[in-house]
């Protein structure tokens, strides 16, 4: 049962279709499945809905699929830093469903864990709560949020073994595990596929059961806000 594919395009062969819901990992430009996004652009699949915390920037991340008008709808918590996004949104070409960031992450995990709905205090009394079921627990009001069940997950990890066990690096983990969990099919791109047995079984961040297809590639890993401090001189 080979999970390793030769390229992002090969790994996506047969799983892309118009109008599908794709859950994508990443926060800002950190830990995004950049190779798979490029392959989706190359495939030209249209009318996609993305559940993704952000929408990338104009020329990187999901932004490249906005330029080609492949995205119909975004389910996100924050879509700043993207002029093309705003243009399409304001002109009505692009649908947008704002989710609070934690609600989005939990909705992905819930979908992956067979939980179709859960209650949260987040957003009670705000526009987010409109039209949602309200329910009291212990005298406090919560709203019902639904699990996300995606057709496809695309995620980026640091290392994998051939069975798809994944480890992430620092804050590049972010939405990748919950996004991976909630897809019917999950394709992962990694910086390095290591020999079976070289990952610590106690240190696996995402077990291979969640990963159906796998590619290794070279990542640009662009930095959005380069902030530094000066070395103090003695």
């Amino acid at each position: 049962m080979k999970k390793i594919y030769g390229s992002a395009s090969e790994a996506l062969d047969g799983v892309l279709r118009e109008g599908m819901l794709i859950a994508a990992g990443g926060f800002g430009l950190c830990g995004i499945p950049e190779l798979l996004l490029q392959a989706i652009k190359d495939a030209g699949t249209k009318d996609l809905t993305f559940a993704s915390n952000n929408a990338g920037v104009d020329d990187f991340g999901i932004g490249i699929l906005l330029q080609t008008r492949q995205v119909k709808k975004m389910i996100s918590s924050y879509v700043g830093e993207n002029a093309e996004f705003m243009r399409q949104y304001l002109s009505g070409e692009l649908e947008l469903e704002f989710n609070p960031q934690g609600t989005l992450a939990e909705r992905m995990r819930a979908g992956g864990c067979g939980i179709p709905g859960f209650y949260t205090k987040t957003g009670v009394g705000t526009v987010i709560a409109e039209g949602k079921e309200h329910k009291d627990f212990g005298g406090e009001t919560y709203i019902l949020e639904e699990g996300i069940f995606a057709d496809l997950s695309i995620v980026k990890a640091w290392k994998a073994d051939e069975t798809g066990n994944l480890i992430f690096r620092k804050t590049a983990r972010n939405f990748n595990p919950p996004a991976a969990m909630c897809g019917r099919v999950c394709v992962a791109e990694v910086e390095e596929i290591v020999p079976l047995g070289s990952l610590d079984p106690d240190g696996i961040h995402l077990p291979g059961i969640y990963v159906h297809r796998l590619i290794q590639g070279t990542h640009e890993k662009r930095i959005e806000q380069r902030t530094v401090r000066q070395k103090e001189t003695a």
Partner: protein
Amino acid sequence: MPWNRNEMAARAAEELEDGMYVNLGIGIPTLVANYVGDKDITLQSENGMLGMGPFPFEGEEDADLINAGKQTITELRRTSYFDSATSFGMIRGGKIAAAILGAMEVAENGDLANWMIPGKLVKGMGGAMDLVAGVGRVIVVMDHTNKHGDSKVLRECTLPLTGKGVVDRIITNLGVLDVVDGGLKIVECADGVTEEVLRAATDATIV
């Protein structure tokens, strides 16, 4: 003389106690980290990190290590990383003792608006709604008035809410106010600011 940004941050830092896990928002709240002194404070970055360190030295930036403002940062010896579902689980679950956040408007009942202005470009709430709903204590740090001189502390918020009845304390350039039954209570005035000045600048019930 009203407090400047650094003085507001320093005042906000007084809210933090030894051993606290804290989330700092973007803007003035970020400066609070500079004033915690010897206190053992652990900063959460809601994109999946506890124990956030300072900005890296030039040349040591790591694309895999950013904060919730997407800035490059560093790790500490106590640092742990986790995924976004876990991160917001700890926020929603009340494990973060305090959040210090900026705001556009705060109302006397604790309502907070800090994520959108209708008719303007909407960027999204990010993690703000989760933070104000979940953390133990929400402290707002902001200028008391907007650039037109109008009070940002109000009887009722006019902008879409981030959270309802969520703010515990407001720290502005003019002083410190607590949300209490029936309105706001003046805790402290900035150096050289009188209670009369603070009241006059505040478009809300002060009890």
